[in-house]
């Protein structure tokens, strides 16, 4: 319990640091969203409209600390204001509409990568020198060395455009109405294949290699030798004794990767025109949409912190050694 409380304290501190950072960052840069918009629309906003724009977006001239206090209040009450680039949609609406897709894409690919990667790692370490152990790691590392947007574009062109096996864009077919029918779920899964594969391909090597290396270390532990001496079946030794212990560092790494879920799919989302917050963050940044940017960053950070906290709780279940202390 003490451990969990301690972690909670840490996450609160981390949360405060990140919301403060979130506040400071946009205010450190030159230019304001209105100038940015003027530049972006190149001539279709008239100079005389600029003042009105400023007014309506509430570009703020109050002293920093005052803005900070107000900002803290707003963040705590969940009010993130209006998106500037999508005025007058509230930031919360913009995010709420998209975050689900990002989580779907990120979580699916993460889980697939972790599951397959770890399994391969376990098997490779268990049968040293086999195909899995000697051929697969370099191959996966090589694939993982490609910039993931590059790989995503390659997949899109190969399997989407050239071969036409998979849809080129979006999370589900145009014109379908989202519901929980089998058809729709199938459609969503079908659209998920390429984007998820591109992420899985890039990340699976790291998982496999990590698991393999930990597992090799674990295999040399006395308790594995003891389990063998006990005459247990190899399958049981591999899963219950070796993999169960070797998994622990992966769990921590999994927590860390949750951060990647939300932010990391950014380029994938852009390449596959997949809905999600990643792309929105990019466009918010391009439009200097502070409120949206802050909202997104805050959402992402909060999600990551909460997810990590959950991982910590799970970790406590998985590793009895941290329960006391």
């Amino acid at each position, binding site marked *: 319990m003490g451990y969990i409380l301690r972690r909670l304290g840490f996450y609160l501190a981390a949360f405060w640091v990140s919301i403060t950072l979130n506040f400071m960052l946009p205010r450190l*840069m*030159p*230019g*304001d969203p209105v*100038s*940015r918009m*003027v*530049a*972006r*629309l*190149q*001539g*279709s*906003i*008239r*100079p*005389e*409209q*600029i*003042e*009105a*724009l400023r*007014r*309506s977006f509430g570009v703020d001239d109050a002293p920093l600390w005052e803005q900070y206090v107000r900002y803290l209040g707003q963040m705590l009450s969940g009010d993130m204001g*209006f998106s500037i*680039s*999508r*005025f*007058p949609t509230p930031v919360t*609406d*913009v995010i709420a*509409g*998209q975050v689900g*897709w990002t989580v779907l894409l990120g979580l699916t690919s993460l889980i697939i990568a972790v599951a397959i990667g770890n399994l391969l790692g376990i098997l490779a370490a268990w049968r040293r020198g086999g195909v899995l152990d000697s051929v697969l790691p370099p191959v996966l590392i090589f694939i993982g060395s490609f910039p993931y947007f590059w790989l995503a574009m390659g997949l*899109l062109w190969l399997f989407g*455009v050239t071969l*036409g096996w998979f*849809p*080129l*864009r*979006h*999370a*589900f*077919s*145009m*014109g379908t*109405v*989202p519901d929980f029918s089998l058809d729709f779920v*199938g459609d969503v899964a*079908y659209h998920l294949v390429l984007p998820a594969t591109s992420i899985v391909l890039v990340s699976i090597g790291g998982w496999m290699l990590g698991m393999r290396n930990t597992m090799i270390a674990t295999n040399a532990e006395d308790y594995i030798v003891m389990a063998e001496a006990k005459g247990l079946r190899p399958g049981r030794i591999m899963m219950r004794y070796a993999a169960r212990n070797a998994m622990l560092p992966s769990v921590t790494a999994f927590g860390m990767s949750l951060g990647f879920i939300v932010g990391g799919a950014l380029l994938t*989302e*852009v*390449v596959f*025109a997949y*809905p*999600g917050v990643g*792309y929105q963050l*990019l*466009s918010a940044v391009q439009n*200097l949409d502070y409120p949206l940017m802050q909202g997104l960053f805050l959402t992402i950070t909060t999600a990551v912190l909460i997810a990590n906290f959950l991982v910590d709780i799970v970790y406590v279940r998985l590793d009895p050694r941290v329960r006391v202390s």
Partner: protein
Amino acid sequence: LVGCSGGGKDTAADLDGTQLLTIPREDMGTFDRNFNPFSNPDFPMTQQAIYESMLIFNPADGTTTPWLATEWEVAPDGTGVTYHLRDDVKWSDGEPLVADDVVVSFDLQRQIRGGFDYIEKITAVDDTTVQFDFSEPFSPALLDIGQQSIAPAHIWREFDDPAKETNPEPVGTGPYTEVTNFQAQSFDLLRNPEYWQPDAQRIEGIRVLAFAGNDGANLAAANGDVDWAPQFIPNIEKAYVEKDPEHRFYWFPPTGSMVNWQFNTTKAPFDDANVRKALSMAVDREQVAEIGMQGYTKPADCTGLTGSYDSWRDEDVVSSCTWTKRDLDGAAKLLDEAGITLGSDGKRVLPDGTPFEFDYSVGAASSDWVSVGNVIAQNLAELGVTVNVAARDWAEVVSGYESGDFDSGVVWSNSAPTPYQFYRGVMSTETVKPAGEQAFENYHRFGSPEADALLDRFAAASDQATQTSVMNELEALFAAEAPVAPLFPGPEWGAASTARFTGWPTEDDPYATLSTRARTAVLILTTLEPVKG
């Protein structure tokens, strides 16, 4: 289920005449349901299919089409305009269009988006007549006012905070107002049951798709998943047309804003018109257009006017002017005269002995203009002048422009139905702010009292002849002063396929530009016909 529906890949059987016109929106990865015509930025098709204006000006051929208004009169002294509305127009909820709608729309526009500062008073004279009074003579107002979207007063008066209204179920006079099947990445607009030109609603409806960037939209276009491709497509012949030459075409009329190379005239030696001209002369505009802009536009001339203003262009000025044609020797001579001489290392030095080297500022996001900068830098290197292409974030670039803290840079010009706004933006002393003070136009800070007088005369002139002669004088003044170096008119991107819809505007039939965001798009929507069978 398998495959993406709604594109040009439909077999003949799918072309039953009810196919939806599929349009991409390349800069919105996802849609939020926001059909507020007064919000920034415009939501796709809001100003084109849902809300309409009193008249439509087509820059491609310079014609003006009466739309919600049938006719109008400009006050003889230029201090007002009166529009007469069509009496058969109904809002999509069945209410009739009245003059009060116009009054309320302008109130909202001025309150939310600003502008129209010259309007003093708007009066609904009767149900179909609305009168605008100005504080001073302002002839360009006619088209300016006429192109404002009109929203229904009976709806918008009810909203507590119109600025923050997302207007999810829009009520408009346009041809396609019924929003259906709204998803984060697509939505459909179906026919307005009350449309005033039912004959023109030949297509079933419009489907808008969201794309997180040009790449996705281009891919969709190349793949034939959309009917209309209004975004920038690199190497369009190969990337788009070649894949279905029978149906696909593009047309990039030079009707966008003029793209200028501006010099900070508060800094020496850019305060010298001859230096500006010399630099301009060193630029190979053909190459700029060919390489920087992929040949999608053509070089500018000394009037600085885009293709929208062809009817205003004074051919005398164009033919007598030299500084927009590449002439390295001429440029060298001008620089020598200005005391910027060639050093022994082949680089020019200013009279004070420092090397003539300066920045070309450009927003990094505008990759085409960065390329333009690269070509310019290459061109000027031949003259012994070093230009550094400083590609930075647009916000930073613009804030440098606004405060007058830059050497030179690429900039767009004001675009409006008449060249008045353009010349005002580059030459009027009213728009000049001292360096350090924030300017929203005329970043190069050039002002000429002569131009002021001409601009005033133009604003006050209500007859075409006077306007033309004043405009010719303004053009000559521009050619003489070279306040900025016009590079090329911005093309208005547009490409389309006749595979599923016919009746697109083309270079030969320029009844509208091929842009989805221009006012003229409604002309296309009411012209297109679905291909059947």
